[in-house]
């Protein structure tokens, strides 16, 4: 059975993104936005759209 301790797992996950370097920024006129914040904004828009589009589970026979 494969056993990975917590420290190894966090190191592996941390290796996916280089957090040691300088940040990446989007420059658009006077707007300066970090890529991380831009990704979060896109995720919020995606979740908002999904919340409107996806059907909400309803129990049959309940009209209220």
């Amino acid at each position, binding site marked *: 059975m494969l056993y990975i301790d*917590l420290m190894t797992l966090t190191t592996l996950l941390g290796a996916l993104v280089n957090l040691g370097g300088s940040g990446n920024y989007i420059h658009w006129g006077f707007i300066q936005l970090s890529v991380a914040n831009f990704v979060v904004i896109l*995720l919020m828009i995606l*979740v908002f759209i*999904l919340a*409107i589009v996806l059907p*909400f589970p309803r129990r049959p026979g309940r009209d*209220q």
Partner: protein
Amino acid sequence: MTTDTTADTTDTTATSVSDGEDAHQWTARVRHAAESAFPPDRLLPDRQPAYLTSWVYVFGILTVTTLAWVIVTGCILALMGPNWWHVSTTGHFVNSLHLWSVEAFFFFMVIHLWAKFFMAAWRGKRRLTWVTGVVSFVVSIAAAFTGYLTQQNFDSQWISTQAKDGINATGAGAFWNVLNFGQMLMWHIVLLPIGVVIIAAFHVLLVRRRGIVPPFADSRRHGAEPSPTADDRDEPA
């Protein structure tokens, strides 16, 4: 408040009997106002309107839930102290829980704000509900900002030295000094959390009082453009 030496405190009818002669007292007036505004079945209803069967309505309670996580993890950090959250593995974990619950709190709160904006959720005498939501959002930003200032690392040094000029330019720096660690810590762990929790609790009570705002009338079904001002049909005067 008057005293009645003959009153039996175990008598459940004592309140209604004494209401007639004591109705002028502030205790009676507050009690009646609270009972009128928040009857138990409205404060904790068993069922909700059918139009709530949409995922877009879940972000309010998700915001409240993540706020609870913020408060709980913040209390644990306050109990254990900086030597614990900076050094031990468990401290790092709880510190991260505190950070990520704040991230989730703002994530859900902004989507909640978008949803309520496009629903025009201030309709039907719900203006104060909307305003308390806006105020709690602004106070939450201040609470999160002071959290960044009190991280005790290079990040917090950078943020505070960058913020001081902006804050001083507003004039607020005269009594709200972002370079004063002790002051910012007290704002972060005492004043601002109290403010956020009180305003959020008032916001939730107003939601219970006025109910969830109904959707706009379907113009395709009714053959007319919906009128925002007329859409308070679920609302008693």
